[in-house]
């Protein structure tokens, strides 16, 4: 990059001089398109705030999330020292929400690491290898797709025992099939293209073709789908927590907090309301972001 050029010019150049520049320029273009979408930017901002909150929880929270103070139980919001009120054991709801963001992020991260990766593996292998492998893998996918997700997750947690890791596992087990379907469809369209034949003639093995040449092309639609699904995943995790099958008390998981507040809903509405608002905000943010990403990365079924 010559010194006279600004970074912006370098990024928007029509004639990239290196592969890296071309890649970065494409990213920059996507970012420009994305930036124009107000709703998506709001979603992104909320999620960045969530990550910030989770990272700096000990510094942000005014109280220990587990510290009980029975003298100050069920304080309404805006009470001195309890901005969002306190719960039935006198724990500060705001602090619990702040620490709870860590659990939400943990669930999001774990499911993101599990479900799409499994789906990508199964889908690309089925699509690339074809034949019997394809038939068996896709039938398996159909079976899992046919199952109602929450009920399956419930049954899994029931068998494995309650707990946050098992909730993550159960949700992932029910979440991977759509990704496998998608990855397979993409693989089928890519599989017979000329460049794949060229690579095969150069002697590349199946493993290399799948990981190096098919996966990168599946990623963008997968990212959109995962972002859009994330709201559902957060709701499912909170639902399991609410039923007492996810994170166990006294952990400040948002769904479990709603379930605790349920007993006092008529007289002390805030105990259940606040964590619900938190769940709603985060899943809305994922939906907004996913909608925006779809418009940018996957314009064929964009909504605008």
């Amino acid at each position, binding site marked *: 990059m010559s010194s006279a050029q600004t970074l912006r010019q370098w990024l928007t150049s029509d004639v990239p001089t290196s592969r890296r520049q071309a890649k970065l320029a494409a990213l920059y273009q996507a970012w420009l398109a994305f930036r124009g979408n107000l709703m998506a930017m709001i979603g992104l901002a909320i999620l960045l705030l969530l990550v910030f909150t989770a990272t700096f929880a000990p510094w942000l929270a005014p109280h220990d999330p587990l510290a009980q103070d029975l003298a100050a139980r069920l304080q309404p919001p805006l009470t001195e020292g309890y901005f969002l009120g306190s719960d039935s054991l006198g724990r500060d709801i705001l602090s619990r929400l702040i620490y709870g963001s860590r659990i939400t992020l943990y669930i999001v991260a774990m499911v993101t690491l599990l479900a799409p990766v499994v789906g990508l593996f199964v889908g690309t292998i089925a699509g690339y290898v074809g034949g019997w492998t394809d038939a068996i893998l896709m039938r398996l996918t159909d079976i899992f797709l*046919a199952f109602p997700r929450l009920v399956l997750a419930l*049954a899994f947690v*029931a068998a494995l025992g309650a707990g946050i890791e098992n909730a993550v596992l159960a949700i992932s087990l029910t979440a991977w099939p759509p990704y496998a379907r998608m990855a397979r469809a993409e693989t089928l369209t890519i599989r017979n293209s000329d460049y794949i034949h060229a690579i095969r003639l150069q002697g590349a093995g199946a493993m290399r073709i799948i990981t190096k040449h098919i996966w990168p092309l599946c990623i963008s639609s997968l990212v959109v789908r995962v972002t859009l699904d994330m709201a559902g995943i957060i*709701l499912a995790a909170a639902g399991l927590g609410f039923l007492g099958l996810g994170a166990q008390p006294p952990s400040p998981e948002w769904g479990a907090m709603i379930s605790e507040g349920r007993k006092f809903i008529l007289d002390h509405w805030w105990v259940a309301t606040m964590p619900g608002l938190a769940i709603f905000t985060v899943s809305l943010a994922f939906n907004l972001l996913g909608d925006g990403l779809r418009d940018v990365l996957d314009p064929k079924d964009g909504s605008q």
Partner: protein
Amino acid sequence: MALADTNTKGRRKSPFLQFVIKAAKTLGAIAVTMLGLLFVTFFIGRVMPVDPVLSVVGERATKEIYDAAYIKLGLDKPLIVQFFTYVIDVIQGDFGKSLRTGFPVSIDIKRVFPATLELATLGTLIGVFVGVPLGVLAAVKRGTWIDQVARVVALIGYSMPVFWIGLIALLVFYGILGWVGGPGRLDIFYEDIVPSVTGMILIDSALAGDWTIFRNAFSHIILPACLLGYYSLAYISRMTRSFMLEQLSAEYVTTARVKGLKESAVIWRHAFANIKVQLITVIALSYAGLLEGSVLTEIIFAWPGIGSYITTSLLSADMNAVMGGTVVVGLVFVCLNIFADLLYKFFDPRAK
């Protein structure tokens, strides 16, 4: 769900033979899916628990009781034999006995399923009657504030935790305003008065001509049904919008406009007529989704349906009931999916 891969290669066969082969393939695929479903529930119920006997007899059982249960569950036989025994039992409608209620699971399910069906049906009706016009309107007024409002309404629907909004709705409409009935299907003094014909109280009370009970049942069902309806509305309105947009940009719509048809005729008689099949598929899918999605709603509203049945059994480690409930919900889910698929193939000539 792609149930049958259409095989276009090979020699030409007679239409009848083709039909038979296709039907056999579809039936085969359904059978395999059902078998897989049973395998998964079997796996969950019998293989995954560390000790399935303990979950039946409890931790303080004596050695004799334990051994008897061990034999009775057939755990001394190989897994594959156990699985086939399970499949044969299920085909005969035998899901074992519920430890919590003491009744056979199949009888329990027959009792609770109509409640869920009633709720999900009303929810779907609300979703269709609000969602479809909203979606059509959003597509026609694309890019205007109406479209934006419809988009936000749907996004909120996708993002709201149902168990939370259910609680808040109960608090506001029952606790504070007193507009609707509380949790449960009926006020307690109305229970067990109308003879149970279908198990759905709205229909039963209407059949018996008892309108006091009908009104009471309606005041109880309306809130959870509206909530479920909102969820299905979110999905149905988005799908309707995108189907409509596709049609409205087609050339035949321009032709219809050019020849001077009224806008309402263009929209409803031309464009909408072409999305009906797709729409029915979407509605069937959303119906299936509601049958499942009602699990959490049922808990909040103390609705004695299959969702509450599964969860309460689950919390008391009643694996037979959980497995039975899961299989039944799964079967209904699969059937609705297949139904949607067949409908699509049957009515839409392009899918052939």
